């Protein structure tokens, strides 16, 4: 494979998507964990949908929601001067939405597992809710959150269906590595397909091992 663009694009897109999904996902998970209402599970179900939907269907929803003729897509175009779909920003959105449920589910479970008595005694000793989250809840849930973020990254890196629907398959512009592998297979270019697949597999394994070790050491 002599064109490294798809690999760099994939890494860039999935890193940005992981950061966004990490911040948004942990915040949402925290609110869902503390929000004692039936609606919490409805909201969680909506955000979990990307795990169970076929990625192309998720991509279709996003395309409909974010396309140039939609309200959101229109506002984006007015502000940034270019459409959101069929751009690298579109690829980031697709990857973020795909990664988000992994972060939310793992983070919510980890936050729920934090001993409520430890949180209570922190409150009683005068810490504000924000400080309790910062000093008690999130550090104690860090391993679970880390696992969710790692899975989210792997998912973002490997996304094909949603990305191809929202960002398209424009070589040198929006063609991520999984899409490039598909393209290469279609074109009978075995060497490129093999190299791309091995690279994706290797990057995913290295990242998962690193994250697992970092969080194992903390215990």
């Amino acid at each position, binding site marked *: 494979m002599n064109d490294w663009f798809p690999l760099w694009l994939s890494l860039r897109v999935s890193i940005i998507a992981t950061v966004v999904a990490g911040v948004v996902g942990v915040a949402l998970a925290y609110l869902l964990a503390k929000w004692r209402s039936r609606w919490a599970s409805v909201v969680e179900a909506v955000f979990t949908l990307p795990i169970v939907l076929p990625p192309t269907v998720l991509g279709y929803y996003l395309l409909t929601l974010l396309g140039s003729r939609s309200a959101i897509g229109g506002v984006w175009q007015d502000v940034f001067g270019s459409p959101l779909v069929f751009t690298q920003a579109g690829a980031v959105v697709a990857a973020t939405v795909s990664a988000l449920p992994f972060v939310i589910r793992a983070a919510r479970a980890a936050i729920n597992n934090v001993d409520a008595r430890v949180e209570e*005694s922190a*409150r*009683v000793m005068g810490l504000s809710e924000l400080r309790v989250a910062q*000093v008690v809840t999130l*550090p104690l849930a860090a391993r679970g959150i880390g696992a969710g973020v790692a899975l989210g990254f792997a998912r973002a890196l490997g996304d094909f269906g949603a990305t191809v629907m929202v960002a398209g398959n424009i070589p040198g512009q929006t063609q991520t590595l999984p899409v490039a592998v598909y393209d290469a297979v279609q074109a009978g270019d075995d060497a490129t397909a093999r190299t791309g697949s091995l690279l994706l597999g290797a990057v995913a394994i290295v990242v998962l091992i690193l994250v697992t070790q970092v969080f194992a050491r903390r215990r």
Partner: protein
Amino acid sequence: MRLLTLDVRVDVPGFGVDAAFSVGTGITVLAGPSGSGKSLTLAAVAGTVRPTRGSIRFGDAVFVDVDRAIHRRSQDRELGVVYQHAALLDHRSPLDNVMLAVREGNVSARRLLARELLQRVGAGELADAKTRSLSGGERQRIALARAVAGNPRLLLLDEPFSSLDSASRTHLRELLKSFVAERHLTALVVTHDQADVDALADRVVVYEPGRTVSASE
């Protein structure tokens, strides 16, 4: 003198307690059989459960008044608590644990006060130890230092010494008594141990299942 006055009902699934008493400074022991509602009373004073009826006042401060829909947040009740299994933050040092509870001053002032308190409870050399690896007695000493670090007027202790050996227990009782005396604190102590009652109690509130029956000096 600030009086702590309770006249509340607290309900949790499958159980409820009616608690009515009024106590001043010094150590008040809540005594009675397991499951009579002593810890639940303490939780209502701490603000971690909401009473279903009645009120809790401490001096001029209204902690709870169900009729007026007042439920002051735990953070604003200015309390110190010690639980049976010290709810210390295992991922922070003992010094950090105490420092976090200090409400006033800059970082160096808070650190200084935390170190002094750790010295005071005989845990000065443990300031930077691994919290996770401390013994039960060490943890409770740090929990006591943390409970008074925020300069509260009211201390709540739920079976604070029950998992300790007798030497640690005696030491902690003396520490608690000296803090209460010096700082003119009001302390509520839940215990099953008659020796705690004998050693600590300025007064006793007696529980039977589901209600308080008497308060005596």
